[in-house]
């Protein structure tokens, strides 16, 4: 149909091209055949290699997808383990804190009881020592007062013993002894 559209004059001069776009029919034939040969060769030899490359790429991508999925599964498992471990740590922490609180409360209670008992003991001893010291001081004071009063009395009597009194005492003694038998 293309050939039919071309003017008949063109075919008369072999040096002139029939159309600025279209080659000669013979070139079309040879060109078409050559293209078929090339396409065939491509189909025969290039396509398997390309297909193989595509399959290999597909397998690679699939492998990466599988690896990613496995990694995700592993990551999910790790995340689960971590979450469980975190849960365990939290519960352990709570348990430890509770035990520590209980021990602290026990120690505090024991310490308070011990300090209270010691305080009561110290107070009792202090009270006893206070009483003893009071009694001792009282005794010492009484003894000191007695001693001082004795000394004072002796000195007062000694000062009052004038010669006349001394002589009277001597004479009284002689008279008393002389009259006794």
């Amino acid at each position: 149909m293309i050939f039919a559209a071309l003017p008949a004059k063109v075919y008369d001069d072999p040096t002139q091209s029939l159309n600025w776009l279209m080659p000669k029919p013979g070139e079309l034939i040879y060109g078409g055949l050559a293209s078929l040969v090339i396409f065939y060769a491509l189909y025969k030899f290039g396509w398997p290699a390309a297909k193989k490359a595509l399959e290999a790429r597909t397998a690679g991508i699939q492998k990466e997808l599988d690896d990613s999925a496995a990694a995700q599964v592993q990551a999910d498992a790790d995340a689960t383990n971590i979450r469980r471990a975190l849960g365990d740590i939290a519960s352990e922490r709570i348990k430890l804190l509770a035990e520590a609180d209980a021990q602290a409360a026990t120690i505090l209670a024991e310490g308070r009881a011990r300090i209270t008992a010691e305080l009561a003991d110290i107070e009792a001893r202090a009270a006893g020592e206070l009483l003893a010291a009071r009694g001792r001081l009282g005794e010492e004071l009484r003894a000191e007062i007695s001693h001082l009063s004795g000394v004072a009395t002796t000195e007062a009597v000694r000062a009052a013993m004038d010669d006349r009194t001394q002589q009277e005492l001597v004479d009284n003694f002689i008279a008393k002894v002389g009259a006794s038998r």
Partner: protein
Amino acid sequence: MSVAQINAYVAAMFEIASANDAVSVVEDDMFRLARAIESNEQLRAALNDTSLPADRRQKIVEQLLGGKAHNVTVQLVSLLVGTGHVSLLPQVADALVKRASSSKQMEVAEVRSAVALTDAQKTRLAEALGKAAGKPVNLKVVVDPSVIGGLVATIGDEVIDDTVRTRLDQVKARF
């Protein structure tokens, strides 16, 4: 020093004093000296100080008794000092007084007084104590200010105490 040794000294001193007819004087000198040594710590220490030569201690005795005691007393005391037995002097003196009193059928009456007694008081006291003891007493008076007032007499085991000190002690004991 045993009692036997003290008695030996006393016997010897009594014989010497008797031979010199000075028993009364010597036993009285010894008694007064014994009381003086008992009441004077410095004198007691000096006479007992063995680091001092014996003749030095004998000179102390001679200076102490010179003119105040019989020669026999001075010699007998010097003997005790020289033999290093001056610490026995109070016991020896007391035993000598007792021996001298016994020889005269008398009882020793030691009287402590705060003040010195007059001769008249001593005579009346000796009579009164003799009456109380039932036989004459050889009166030995010691002036002892610690009795404060009154007298305390010791005749053998009997003590007649009428001192102010004892009365004060009795009053203190009640409180």
